[in-house]
């Protein structure tokens, strides 16, 4: 042969082609599931979306009997309760992650991280049960104590100390999302090259000062962890439903009973007889889905960016396997 021959070099075995087709099919099933969730939710919500549109989200009156459907109290409750949760859980989660990745002796790491992961494994309804019978009484006495100090003139701490309400919901949510914050930030810290830590220590930094370097390096990833945990908190249903008091009230007070988007769907959907009530609840579900999609996409993007960056650096240093 004098001329180099150009071949199509892939003769794919028939079994291979079939197998690849089957795998692809299952990949498509995952896409189909996402589409199906969106379409079905839309179908159920449509009467409400068509009638109220986006105005729905800023109306404050929720009275199914008089067919008044304003979802703002639920949006408010979801945002505020999850914000309380984030404020409590982020420092704690970061502390745990720092402890596990930078401080803990080797023998302590496994058991502590196992216990923290257990927190994530406990079912939501069990948190609700515990919250209702153990946490709420504690919160109630805490609220009483706060009221006695005379802080009740501050709107944040006004109202009757029911125990059940926004504060309890926020605390339960915080406990539930701490493992997410801790696990993701631990991954982020792990991605920080040792050279960064050692460089700081070698310059005479204390352990804490070296940690600040680690923190700085991993900041986008930590923001990602926070956003991811926030997404979890937004969608959490049962535990919140059981301790928040389930009243569509917008109140500045942390002690006031409230309601969230997820929790109103859980409590009213089965009792809803009017078709518009059903649709309105589904529209709340749609809005909740939109909110969490936004957040999880954002979180993904942030975490991904850190991973890419650290991978890029490792490659540049020739750390990756040959």
């Amino acid at each position, binding site marked *: *042969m004098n*001329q180099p*021959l150009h*071949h199509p*070099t892939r*003769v794919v*075995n028939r079994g291979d082609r079939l197998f690849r087709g089957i795998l692809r099919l299952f990949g498509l099933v995952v896409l189909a599931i996402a589409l199906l969730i969106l379409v079905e939710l839309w179908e159920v919500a449509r009467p409400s979306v068509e009638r109220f549109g986006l105005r729905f989200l800023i109306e404050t009156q929720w009275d199914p009997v008089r067919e008044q459907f304003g979802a703002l109290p639920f949006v408010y409750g979801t945002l505020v309760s999850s914000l309380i949760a984030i404020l409590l859980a982020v420092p704690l989660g970061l502390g745990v992650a720092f402890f596990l990745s930078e401080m803990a002796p080797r023998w302590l790491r496994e058991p502590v991280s196992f216990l923290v992961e257990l927190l994530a494994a406990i079912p939501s309804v069990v948190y609700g049960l515990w919250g209702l019978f153990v946490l709420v009484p504690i919160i109630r006495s805490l609220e009483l104590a706060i009221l006695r100090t005379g802080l009740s003139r501050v709107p944040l701490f006004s109202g009757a100390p029911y125990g059940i309400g926004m504060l309890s919901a926020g605390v339960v949510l915080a406990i539930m999302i701490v493992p997410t914050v801790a696990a993701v930030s631990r991954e982020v810290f792990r991605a920080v090259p040792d050279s960064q830590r050692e460089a700081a220590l070698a310059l005479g930094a204390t352990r804490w000062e070296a940690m600040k370097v680690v923190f700085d390096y991993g900041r986008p990833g930590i923001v990602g962890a926070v956003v991811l945990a926030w997404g979890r908190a937004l969608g959490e249903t049962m535990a919140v439903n059981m301790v928040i008091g389930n009243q569509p009230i917008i109140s500045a007070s942390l002690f006031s009973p409230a309601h969230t988007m997820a929790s109103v769907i859980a409590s009213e959907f089965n009792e809803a007889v009017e078709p518009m009530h059903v649709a309105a609840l589904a529209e709340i579900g749609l809005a909740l889905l939109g909110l969490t999609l936004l957040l999880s996409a954002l979180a993904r993007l942030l975490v991904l960016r850190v991973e890419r960056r650290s991978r890029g650096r490792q490659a540049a240093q020739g750390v990756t396997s040959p």
Partner: protein
Amino acid sequence: MAVPIRVEHLNAAFGPFQALHDVTLTLPARQVTAIIGPSGCGKSTFVRCINRMHEETPGGRVWGQIYLGDEPVYGPDVDPVVIRRRVGMVFQRPTPFPTMSILENVVAGYTLLPGRPRDLESLAERSLRQAGLWDEVKDRLRDSPLNLSGGQQQRLCIARALAVEPEVILLDEPCSSLDPISTAKVEETIMELAQRYTVVLVTHNIQQATRVSQHTAFFLLGRLIEFGPTEQLFTNPANEQTEAYITGRFG
């Protein structure tokens, strides 16, 4: 059953990067041919073209032709799976299948396919003997291969490749992750293989090439620079780049 390998105008690329340029040579049967050259010279890619493994790399493309005896390796009607039955391969790092016992590893070329051929035990024994491993493992055939030393694992991989009764054995730097004693054992095995098979040995170790091969091909930057009897190539190279390499002036 051993056949010569005729390579004609072989080219290979990864995506836009061309790794081999117009390689033509014939690797003789029942001999060890060493492929030498600095890292990145295309020697690994070259052997991976012989059993059509190169196209499994993402972006891998091949053009040109290779013949096993008289039969083409590339063509629209050629099934790469059939080629790989005829051309066995052993990799840089030992690759025993961790979920299988030593015995199961040796006969994996059969058990991984549908259907159950008989008499696998005697086949396994024969292959292990050929690979010079039988005496060391005959009492623990049911053990995990991960308990073997690196050299033993590599000879297990040789036995596994031999068990499917190929005509050609490709060895891609088989000793690069082994200690000197294991290396000596594997080299001994390689020399014995040459009595029955066409053996192609990629190595970055010039001494190894002189110890075990009859012919040597020197590659540089994806091109075949020189090919000839090992002794001649090392004592009296025709090309000055070859001389520079074997005297250690680069690479």
